[in-house]
């Protein structure tokens, strides 16, 4: 009876095992329909990931520069942080299905929800970052200003990285399975963009630490992104396809060229500035590629099913395989 056509409603159970690490055989599915839902999130989210990273890391840079005595850089980074954080709440609110009810986020504090913790974090961090700028302009209450600077620096480090955990605390395979790398990837991107923004906007001669930071961030971004895709195996192949693939390649090229230019631009400010623009673009494209990869991963039933079936077959699942 091998003349049967492929069974209706099933992907043929042929197993294209190609020996790649983490490439489980294709499993049957329900008419190749997705098993999980695509995110409901819209364009505001990747911009928020970018703005939050830029703001948070700028606050960290500002605090570090202040402690090391680079006051000009510290002032400028503090302004950049406040400028970026101003964009964050509107982006998040306009992404809601019911924006007029945004304040319900502050109705409860739920440690099991990274978004709940993140909402409170954003509320606290934006108060500190904006307060620090306001107090420094006003010129009074220097102690309170120092407290605000310290708080913004400390909270900023979490602000720039928690968004990785926000994406990871979901059932989207390409996000959840990258739960180790995403916070580091977003933190690296934040450092790269904070350093670059400070290079572009700081007074001449004061931006050397920012340039070093941007180079470190860009390099780390490239390394972590590679590690992430390697560890994801089959699930990570969405980074080579369609929109996620295009953003991913753009991010790689822009970050590599920009990081290289900044590394070589120590005594050539124009080259460093050119590189800074490229690194900023790369960091933004990186968030877009992660964002789009989530949609593609959710659409692909094999990304959900194959690793689960493989897990069960290895005896490492959370439920018994069938009674067969």
């Amino acid at each position, binding site marked *: 009876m091998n003349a049967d056509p492929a069974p209706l409603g099933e992907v043929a159970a042929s197993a294209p095992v190609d020996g790649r690490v983490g490439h489980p055989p294709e499993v049957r599915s329900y008419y190749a329909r997705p098993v999980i*839902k695509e995110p409901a999130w819209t364009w505001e989210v990747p911009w928020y990931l970018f703005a939050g990273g830029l703001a948070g890391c700028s606050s960290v840079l500002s*605090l570090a520069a202040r402690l090391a005595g680079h006051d000009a850089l510290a002032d400028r980074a503090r302004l950049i942080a406040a400028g970026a954080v101003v964009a964050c709440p509107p982006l998040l609110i306009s*992404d809601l*299905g019911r924006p007029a009810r945004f304040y319900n986020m502050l109705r409860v504090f*739920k440690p099991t929800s990274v978004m709940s913790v993140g909402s409170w974090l954003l509320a606290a961090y934006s108060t500190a970052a904006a307060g620090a700028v306001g107090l420094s302009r006003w010129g009074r209450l220097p102690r309170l200003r120092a407290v605000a600077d310290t708080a913004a620096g400390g909270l900023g480090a979490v602000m720039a990285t928690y968004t990785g955990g926000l994406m990871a*605390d979901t059932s989207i395979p390409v996000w959840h399975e990258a739960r180790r790398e995403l916070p580091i990837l977003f933190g690296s991107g934040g450092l790269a963009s904070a350093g670059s923004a400070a290079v572009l906007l700081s007074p001449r001669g004061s931006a050397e630490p920012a340039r070093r930071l941007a180079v*470190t961030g860009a390099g780390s971004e490239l390394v972590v992104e590679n590690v992430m895709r390697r560890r994801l195996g089959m699930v990570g192949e969405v980074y080579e396809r369609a929109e996620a693939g295009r953003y991913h390649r753009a991010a790689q090229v822009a970050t590599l060229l920009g990081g290289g230019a900044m590394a070589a631009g120590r005594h050539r400010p124009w080259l460093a500035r050119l590189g800074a623009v490229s690194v900023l673009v790369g960091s933004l494209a990186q968030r877009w590629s992660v964002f789009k990869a989530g949609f593609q991963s959710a659409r692909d039933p094999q990304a959900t099913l194959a690793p689960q079936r493989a*897990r069960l077959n290895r005896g490492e699942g959370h439920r018994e395989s069938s009674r067969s």
Partner: protein
Amino acid sequence: MTHSAHASDQLNHAGGPVPGSQGTRFGFFTDTSVCIGCKACEVACKEWNQVPERTDTGFTGDSMDNTGDLGADAWRHVAFIEQPHGHDAMSRAGLGPPIIDAARHAGNGRAGLEWFGQDPGLPPGAHGAEAIPQLPVFNGEPASPAEDGFRWLMSSDVCKHCTQAACLEVCPTGAIFYTEFDTVVVQDDVCNGCGYCVTACPYGVIERRSPGQPGGGGAFKCTLCYDRMKGSQQPACAQACPTDSIQFGPLEELRARADVRADELIEAGVPGVQLYGHDPSDGVGGNGAFFLLLDEPEVYGLPPDPVTPTRNLGEIWRWIGVAAAGVVAAAGAAVLGGDR
């Protein structure tokens, strides 16, 4: 079928929870072996809960299933799988007989499959009863229904009402809560439509409703007819189900009943029988709505090994911490390093 399905002291004569049964966990046992794919559950659910028409309704062209999947505007979904002979899990793997043999040998009269492959025909005297039945043609050859071994798998899917519900755990507003019947319900007047639950659900159940629809922008899913339960009524789908494929009741009782039923079917030789979501030690702590399936879960569009993503929350926060420490260290190195 007798109404043994309702023989619980927690249920009234109408199959609803008796007053004072708060604190008991109620749920669904969906026995897909007796589902006939009539979709009465889908209709009853839409009617009772005033679930709007789907905006993306269409003709799938795949099967008799034109609902496609669960979502904000489909809280019950009947899946249709058409399996020609030899394509079910067991006979393909050489592990068991094709279902037709099981049906033939289901002699004890309890498997509910005695009719399988035997067209009872129309009663004598009925219009068309004298017509010679046309044999179906399968793969280009005429085949008697008793021999083609073709089977339809039908299953009414629904929100699983997980013990550890991912949607509830990630909800930042507290809009999603466990009721006094241990079911999982969205409070529409609290939900602000952040969509986090949509990405968290490992089954793809909950969804944000399109703007423009009633309640648009908010997240919607099965409530296990919370309003009806409070009024001592059973959920609309269970009441409408003509074959008791959807059984409502106290979860413990349903689990015991499902074990008996699965053993019956296995004894009768039905291939692929397995319970899905009944085990409290699985990746979501077990489901309040669980299933008896006749093939692997993925064939029905169900994830074979679902896990609540928040189980890895500790790891997630640990790596956020590592990353944050790294950010601070990198900034420190940048301002201190080099020769200024």
